[in-house]
């Protein structure tokens, strides 16, 4: 049973979704199963993470079909770290959904689809086959279409159309890129591709394929010219859904970028330059976009875009230090962004509005909650010793080393603009006197709901804040982890050897 260990997180999510489908109309059962299942999943992922950390990269050949031909699942340190983060964010959002999603949505299969989404994410992180990666992306976007439209409010449908169109386009481009790549090399296994792409003589076509991948994943991860779908759609579904979208969906695009450009298309100066330019422009445009928004959730949406820029810049520099910064930022960003969208849901539940102009006086009414919210907000800004600070050191050091002063400027600019945005948000929502907010009818205000449900609202936020604090104060451990991942990523022979065996003995 131990050899199959890395697939268990995947299989557990599948089992949970199937089990939840049997309890289609019994929403209380669904709440219980989802939360308990997510706790078990977290424990399991932590165990598998520990195993991979001690024993190195693990692989499974699904169906016992051998490596370059069948589908492999590869758990290197990056993949398994992201699986662990998925289950941390999954547990928090599962608890938050149980409290905040209205029964009408739950009755139409919210929880099964939610776990299918997590299944897709974990599959995408673990797979070592590029076509299989496409399949997991499909599972992710189909589940996310359901989650974003569930409930069928007008604003939701409008957001969903934009979300659907651009993500569908991204999938088509991704699929085309796979087709061209397969035509060039005759292989789909990523480790196998790494060797074969390097041997292709028609470099121009390889470059075009790489750019197709860049556009496909770029739309999904919302980088500079391709991000417009994100702020148009992320504020429309319930905040629990935005939390999982904001925390993980764009990050899976970043993961795919990191994987493809560190394994298959390596040592390509042109691509690195493109990535750098895109990253810099993303940092600028996302930051400036966040500055002018009024809706709290739209501010967070633009900040997602802005902070994707850090990771893309790190990937563009492609030194070990820069990649370590990217990975650290990824770890920090998943926890904080998930948390922030849940917080926007909590604010909405308390006040009945998400408009910064109308909100206010939060600190005087809920001092303890405000202090709690302070942690993720200022982790995002990166005030030392909170978690956003540490990855920026690596990124800034790397930009000095590589002499790319434009990215240095962009990183510092984006940090400042994040500070300005968060300070503005803090002043508007927490300090200033509240404006007039019309009372909502048929709305469960926070002060009217029962104590256990109140706790359910706050527990996931506390949980993720503790994780953020750990990332900040235990930065040494996270830095160790990111350095190891960076080492594995910059030297792709390790990955290839784990999947295909030692090339010397084979040939």
């Amino acid at each position, binding site marked *: *049973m131990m*050899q199959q260990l890395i*697939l268990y997180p995947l*299989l557990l999510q599948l*089992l949970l979704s199937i089990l939840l*489908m*049997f309890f*289609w109309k019994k929403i209380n059962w669904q709440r219980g199963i989802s939360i308990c299942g997510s706790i078990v999943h977290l424990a399991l992922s932590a165990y598998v993470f520990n195993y991979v950390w001690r024993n190195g990269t693990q692989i499974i050949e*699904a*169906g016992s079909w051998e490596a370059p031909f069948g589908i492999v699942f590869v758990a290197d340190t990056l993949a398994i770290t992201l699986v662990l983060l998925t289950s941390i964010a999954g547990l928090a959002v599962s608890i938050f959904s149980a409290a905040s999603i209205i029964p009408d949505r739950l009755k139409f299969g919210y929880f099964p689809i939610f776990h299918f989404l997590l299944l897709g994410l974990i599959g995408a992180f673990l797979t070592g086959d590029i076509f299989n990666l496409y399949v997991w992306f499909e599972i992710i976007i189909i589940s996310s279409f359901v989650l974003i439209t569930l409930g069928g409010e007008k604003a939701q449908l409008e957001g969903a159309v934009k979300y659907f169109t651009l993500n569908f386009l991204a999938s088509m481009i991704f699929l085309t890129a796979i087709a061209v790549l397969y035509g060039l090399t005759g292989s789909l296994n990523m480790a196998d591709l790494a060797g074969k792409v390097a041997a292709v003589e028609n470099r121009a076509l390889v470059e075009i394929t790489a750019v197709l991948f860049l556009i496909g994943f770029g739309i999904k991860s919302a980088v500079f010219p391709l991000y417009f779908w994100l702020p148009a759609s992320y504020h429309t579904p319930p905040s629990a859904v935005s939390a999982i979208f904001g925390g993980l969906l764009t990050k899976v695009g970043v993961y795919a970028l990191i994987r493809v450009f560190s394994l298959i298309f390596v040592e390509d100066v042109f691509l690195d330059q493109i990535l750098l330019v895109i990253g810099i422009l993303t940092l600028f445009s996302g930051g400036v976009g966040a500055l002018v928004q009024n809706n709290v959730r739209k501010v967070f949406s633009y900040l997602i875009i802005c902070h994707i820029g850090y990771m893309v810049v790190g990937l563009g520099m492609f030194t070990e230090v820069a990649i370590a910064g990217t990975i650290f930022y990824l770890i920090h960003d998943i926890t904080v962004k998930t948390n922030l969208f849940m917080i926007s849901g909590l604010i909405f539940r308390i006040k009945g509005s998400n408009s910064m102009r109308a909100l206010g006086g939060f600190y005087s009414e809920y001092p303890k909650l405000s202090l709690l919210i302070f942690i993720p907000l200022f982790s995002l800004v990166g005030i030392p010793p909170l978690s956003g600070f540490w990855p920026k050191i690596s990124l800034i050091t790397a930009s000095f080393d590589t002499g790319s002063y434009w990215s240095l400027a962009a990183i510092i600019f984006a940090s400042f603009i994040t500070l300005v945005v968060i300070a503005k948000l803090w002043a508007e929502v927490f300090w200033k006197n509240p404006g007039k907010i019309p009372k909502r009818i048929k709305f469960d205000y926070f002060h009217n709901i029962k104590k256990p449900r109140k706790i359910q609202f706050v527990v996931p936020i506390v949980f993720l804040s503790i994780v953020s604090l750990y990332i900040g104060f235990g930065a040494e451990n996270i830095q160790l982890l990111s350095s190891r991942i960076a080492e594995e990523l910059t030297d792709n022979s390790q990955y290839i050897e784990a999947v295909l065996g030692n090339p010397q003995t084979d040939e």
Partner: protein
Amino acid sequence: MKTLILKTASNYLLPVLLVFSIFILLRGHYLPGGGFVGGLIAAIAFVLHAFANGLENTKHLLRIHPGFLMPVGLALSFVSGLAPVIGLDDPFMTGLWLPQDVPVIGSVGTALFFDIGVYLVVVGVTLTIIFTISESA
């Protein structure tokens, strides 16, 4: 679409199509066919029945809600994929086969049960979608 010809024909076509769908399901391992196509043919059989006799009669004929077939089919596929992991510690989805062929069906293995699961899911999904649309129309 209340014509006598369609109504009479659908009574004969329903069993024929269902048998044909199972034939397609079973031949699917090496030849064209399999759970997905088989499931679609089975769903067509019920849709045709619903056209001729009305939705209520078809629902009565089915007894269970078609949506229930989805988790059942998924569970069957899941278990057939998991069987090698639990039984022999082989990777997920490794095919396990009976040593001797079974008459009529041919060789029986976990892949067959996986396909039956797919068949059930496809029937469930297709019928749920079509029934929901024709109810709201």
